[in-house]
């Protein structure tokens, strides 16, 4: 086998702390004993997540440990047989994050997370990750203490909100410049007026066409 990356071990430790700290997550982890799912983060990595003894193990896909092998062959668990993951969850990092949070899925199927295999196990893992999701402020407090962690978390939240506002304002400013100053784009009122004009021309053309057809259908004879 190959080494398990250290960053994956750190994430695993965070989730296991979350599992240990939540009775619901612990019970769910016990129910998921000896199961495995594969998580494909598009363009970044693939990870195999398994639960053994009520503990989550995360491995880079392909680096099979004894634990994963046991899960796969069912040698130490209730499940026997299969040599592959029970389910696969694939998607972009944002789609996977949305899935864990249980937020609305995107209408565009390509942008949403995709689930293959045993959907019930996949959903149980989704709930496990949601229940054991690390509390960043709590994790920070383990390093720097409670008060600085609180202050840093507040600062982080304010910074994030400011960044979102700044992004929105910058977008509005660029759009306004392109519409009002450089005139590379039309503004909404002009666009709607133009579209109304197009509609009017189309309607007029259709009326003229109908009138011409009616004239063509009229019997041809000497003028009265």
């Amino acid at each position, binding site marked *: *086998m190959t*080494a*398990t*990356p*250290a960053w994956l*071990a*750190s994430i695993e*430790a965070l989730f*296991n*702390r979350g599992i*240990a700290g939540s009775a619901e997550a612990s019970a769910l982890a016990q129910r998921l004993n000896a199961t495995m799912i594969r998580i494909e983060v598009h363009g970044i990595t693939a990870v195999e997540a398994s639960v*053994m*003894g009520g*503990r989550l*193990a995360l*491995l880079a896909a392909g680096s099979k*440990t*004894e*634990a994963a092998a*046991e899960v796969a062959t069912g040698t*130490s668990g209730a499940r026997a047989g299969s040599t592959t993951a029970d389910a696969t969850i694939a998607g972009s990092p944002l789609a996977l994050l949305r899935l864990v949070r249980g937020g609305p899925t995107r209408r565009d199927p390509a942008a949403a997370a995709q689930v293959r295999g045993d959907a019930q196990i996949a959903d149980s893992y989704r709930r496990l990750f949601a229940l054991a999701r690390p509390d960043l402020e709590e994790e920070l407090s383990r390093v720097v203490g409670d008060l600085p962690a609180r202050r840093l978390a507040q600062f982080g939240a304010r910074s994030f909100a400011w960044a979102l506002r700044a992004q929105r304002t910058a977008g509005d400013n660029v759009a306004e410049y392109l519409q009002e100053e450089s005139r590379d784009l039309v503004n909404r009122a002009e666009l709607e007026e133009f579209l109304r004009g197009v509609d009017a021309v189309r309607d007029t053309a259709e009326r003229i066409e109908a009138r011409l057809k009616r004239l063509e259908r009229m019997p041809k004879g000497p003028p009265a």
Partner: protein
Amino acid sequence: MNDTDRTADFGFEKVAWNEKAGRVREVFASVAGKYDVMNDLMSFGVHRLWKQFALSLTGLRPGQQALDVAGGTGDLALGMLRQVGKTGRVVLSDINSSMLERGRDRLLDAGLVGNVECLVADAERLPFDDNAFDCVMIGFGLRNVTDKAAALRSMHRVLKPGGQLLVLEFSTPVAPGLKPFYDAYSFKVLPLLGRFVAKDAASYRYLAESIRMHPNQETLLDMLRTAGFDQARYHNLSGGIVALHRGYKI
């Protein structure tokens, strides 16, 4: 084969099986006073990050019991004490009393008393009941043990079911291009540092040699499995200069 016929590696030297523990004890008795300073100098302080990473994976919670084997000057025990809190217990053990004294003094200076015990103990024959600890850690100690398999079995015995062993140890560099620089540093710079700072070049030559004779990542992983550990795996740190092996007693 009895112990009088067997040999053990003492760096690149072969010594009688029974002689190694004494030779290692001499090395660490000689460097104990400058051990922490030398660690910082030799690793440019990175050993603190390696230890922090190991501590982050203990899974210890307040009220639990932990054992630091070959704990020396006690920095891992200190970290574990913070994790188990006042209601937990940590045992700091080392075969070398000089190193252990440093560790005990450091814990006392940090105001940590009452739920920590320090005792001289041989990793191959740990003097504890079966199923006594939630976590056992050995940091930069296993390569100095004469019978590593016996030490792993002993650590497995004292772990509670569900408990975890963490072995933090120098290993084999895997990052491309790292090995020539690492070898040059180990065999040229380390003995010089030892000579000027710890006034003991030979002990630091032993350090470099003992690292080379220590089992590589995969071999140690197999040894963990043979000793009975489940879910055994390892993480390379700093390109494999150090590896953290983990295994559970199920």
